């Protein structure tokens, strides 16, 4: 069996007497979309935060490409190649698309202009931004110099996803990317997620939207009571069976599907 790109073993996080994650495991394999579902309070967001460096687990281990890693800040995870698209998107509405794609890792011009005058290489960044957007099939934006606030919700999501795909070298984590979108835009973003996977980046998708999860996920990690209940696939189980496992109405099957 192939090594997982990202693997968590026995992660635990307590807040006082509240146990947010209780020895949870997770495996993400190359080239797949792994959906993480779970009821409110099942610990899925804590689990994801631990993987993206936003939370330091009390115990447990995280492996990236088989090597153990210790993330203390989101920047650690980022520099290791794990990009996270937060629900709030983390875009600056007033800046344009290219600026947003490179926000926090701007490129300077070569030579004296860059080193002494700290001038940004705007031409290069715009060309790169255009390339990344069109690689993901969102080249229809008229102008890469357009302010992000003039974009629709789906377009903003596309910018955020494009940013993570452009800089994530190992894993892209998407937190509820379709939650605030209409049907049409939601479908468009699902296609984007597939495009990211097809370019070779495995994706972890956190979502409450069962139809969306069953449409794009290769495997579905069901989180319950702070630990992994099971992993199923959209082929092996139906939506109502997944919900039953998630809520505890049905016994989880043995972890054969993984």
């Amino acid at each position, binding site marked *: 069996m192939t090594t997982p790109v990202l693997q968590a073993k026995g992660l635990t996080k307590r807040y006082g007497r509240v146990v947010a994650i209780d020895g949870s495991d997770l495996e993400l394999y190359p080239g797949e979309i792994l959906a993480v579902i779970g009821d409110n309070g099942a610990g899925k967001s804590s689990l994801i935060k631990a993987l993206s460096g936003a939370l330091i687990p009390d115990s447990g281990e995280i492996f990236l490409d088989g090597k153990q890693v210790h993330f203390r800040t989101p920047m650690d995870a980022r520099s290791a190649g794990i990009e996270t698209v937060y629900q709030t998107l983390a875009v600056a509405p007033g800046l344009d698309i290219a600026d947003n794609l490179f926000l*926090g890792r701007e490129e300077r011009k070569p030579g004296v202009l860059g080193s002494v005058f700290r001038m*940004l290489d705007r031409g290069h960044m715009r060309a790169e931004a255009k390339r990344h957007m069109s690689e993901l099939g969102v080249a229809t934006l008229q102008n890469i110099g357009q302010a992000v*606030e003039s974009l629709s919700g789906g377009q903003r999501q596309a910018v955020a996803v494009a940013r993570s795909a452009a800089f994530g070298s190992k894993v892209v984590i998407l937190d509820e990317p379709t939650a605030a979108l209409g049907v049409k835009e939601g479908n468009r973003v699902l296609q984007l997620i597939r495009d990211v996977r097809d370019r070779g980046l495995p994706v972890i998708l956190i979502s409450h939207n069962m139809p969306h999860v069953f449409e794009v996920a290769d495997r579905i990690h069901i989180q319950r009571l702070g630990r992994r209940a099971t992993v199923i696939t959209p082929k092996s189980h139906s939506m109502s069976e997944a919900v039953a496992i998630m809520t505890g109405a049905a016994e989880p099957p043995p972890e054969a599907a993984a």
Partner: protein
Amino acid sequence: MATATATDFEVRRNDSLGLRLQHLLHGNPVLGPLAVLIVAIIAFSIVNGRFLTATNLSLVLQQVTVIAVLALGQTLIILTAGIDLSAGAIAVFSSILMANFCVKAGMPGFIALVLGLACGTAMGALNGVLVTRIKLPPFIVTLGTLTIFFSLNSVVSNSETVRGTDMSSLMTWTGNSIPIGSFRLTYGSIIMLLLFGYFYYALGRTAWGKHVYATGDDIESARLAGIQTSRVLFSVYTVAGLLYAVGGWILIGRLASASPNVGVEYNLDSITAVVLGGTSLFGGRGSVIGTLIGALIVGVFRNGLQLGGVEVVWQGFAIGLLVLVAVSLDQWIRKVKT
């Protein structure tokens, strides 16, 4: 599939005239202030033929210079969704410190100047520390430091004015001018214009500038995007302090003295210029070019109304009205729908 759904991402256009104007101003926030400035210049030159003379225009520029430099620092802070009530206090206190380093402590002009600028920078840095470390709202921080700096100002100066003739010539150098025909361009104005040019560049073409805008737009998003927002905020308050101190230096040249009793109105005037220039008080939106235009609007109105025979008390009334219109316009532009 990727191309079939291309139309989903088209931006919808609305054709009503008001909305188009809203979009135009949203995309080019400097247009509104520029129109106001041009209309004001045309109106005042019709009312009084003396307005457009080179002598009068150089006077307007001299009157505007100090406010413009303070407003430049203020712009940086307002872009991060902050506000600095202590701008004028830092400028005046710095000018008093420079003058006294020179006269009472007997330092050479250059040393006194550099020390004075360093003190202004430190005062800005203090604001920055209070905003980023203790996490107090900028309004409260600068309200406190405003009072403290003015009080220290009275203590240090002993409420006495230092005459320019007693100081090193470097102190009053900013008031010297280059004649261009009958237009007199002061060195202070040249410094002011160079500073605007520099910050126009720094805000638009460096990563620091992008981070200033992103932090003001949405600080949490900026943090998640990997920007060290505390560092950005601290740098902005510190740089603003330095700019205010430069403003204080130019003030000495303008008045040919260092007086502890001027500049109370500078605190609010600098905010007025920023707001008139189309920079949003809610952060993340605006430009230094707008601020320069805003400062010029204040100067042109004050001067034009004076030449038109309007009493000083009513000049304030007119500028107050302008501010209210500018802020209402900002609110309207902010509500832009796509």
